[in-house]
């Protein structure tokens, strides 16, 4: 195994591939395609290793070899995604940049899920008040206290249980959205839409309670 496989030093990553049009061969057949797929995988592995290295602080229990296995898995999954979505590439960026984002996504999601694998996620939407670090502090004035009460009331009354669950988990508990999506058998996009709608409802409630500035 080459030294850069497990060396956490970014400078030891494989050099960036050139900007040739080799990716067009991904649409070909035979040896040309095989060669292009191999180059694609090397590109994706570079990006996945880069991302795992950046996020390694959240996985202190993993060895260098285990971190590299995570990067390899991410690169493999990213290769499948890229090859399945080749027709989506319209040249609005370089192919390298377009492909990189698949590997970064796969690696980031794997790191987040691994970091939270043994952590409990409270999915009871009614338990939010125990996580609500938004209570008035000793230095808060009456206006702040009234605002916080409007927020608490909004969470309690203006949101659906599902919206409350997602808002509490992601914002108050700090659960990464990919981790929550996995636990709820959903996906990032759908959960973010729920979160976005929950925030909009909450802002409307707080604005109606006398704090229109939250919608400015």
């Amino acid at each position, binding site marked *: 195994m080459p030294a850069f496989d497990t060396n956490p030093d*970014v400078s030891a*990553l494989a*050099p*960036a591939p050139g900007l040739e049009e080799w990716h067009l061969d991904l649409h070909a057949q035979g040896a040309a395609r095989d060669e292009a797929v191999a180059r694609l995988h090397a590109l994706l592995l570079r*990006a996945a290793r*880069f*991302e795992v290295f*950046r996020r390694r602080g959240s996985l202190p229990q993993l060895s260098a070899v285990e971190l590299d296995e995570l990067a390899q898995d991410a690169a493999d999954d990213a290769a499948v995604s890229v090859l399945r979505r080749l027709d*989506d590439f319209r040249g*609005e*960026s*370089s192919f*390298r*940049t*377009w492909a*990189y*984002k698949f590997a*970064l*996504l796969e690696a*980031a999601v794997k790191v*987040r899920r691994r970091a939270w694998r043994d952590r409990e996620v409270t999915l009871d939407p009614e338990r939010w008040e125990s996580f609500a*670090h*938004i209570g008035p502090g000793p230095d808060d004035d009456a*206006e*702040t206290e009234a*605002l*916080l009460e409007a*927020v608490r009331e909004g969470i309690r009354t203006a949101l659906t249980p599902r919206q409350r669950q997602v*808002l509490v988990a992601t*914002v*108050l508990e700090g659960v*990464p*959205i*990919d981790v929550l999506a996995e636990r709820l058998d959903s996906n*990032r*996009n759908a959960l*973010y*839409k729920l*979160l*976005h709608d929950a*925030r*909009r409802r*909450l*802002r409307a409630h*707080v604005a109606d309670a006398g*704090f229109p*500035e*939250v*919608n*400015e």
Partner: protein
Amino acid sequence: MTDRDLDPALKRLLGSDEPEIGCDECFAQLDRYVELELAGAPADELVPGLRAHFVGCPACAEEHESLRALLELDSVS
């Protein structure tokens, strides 16, 4: 009290009413956006809705930072 005075935790809870796109659309536009940024082009004007999404979605924001950092690394290696 102005919006700027809100506690950061409260800001994260309430989000922003700026127009923003969702995670799937963010992923679709991310590569173009970052290349525009690195080229010094007005990325937020040309790809509207991403900046507001990064504020509301930490996961997409992290991936934006990573793609930008990786391309910057490539440019010097």
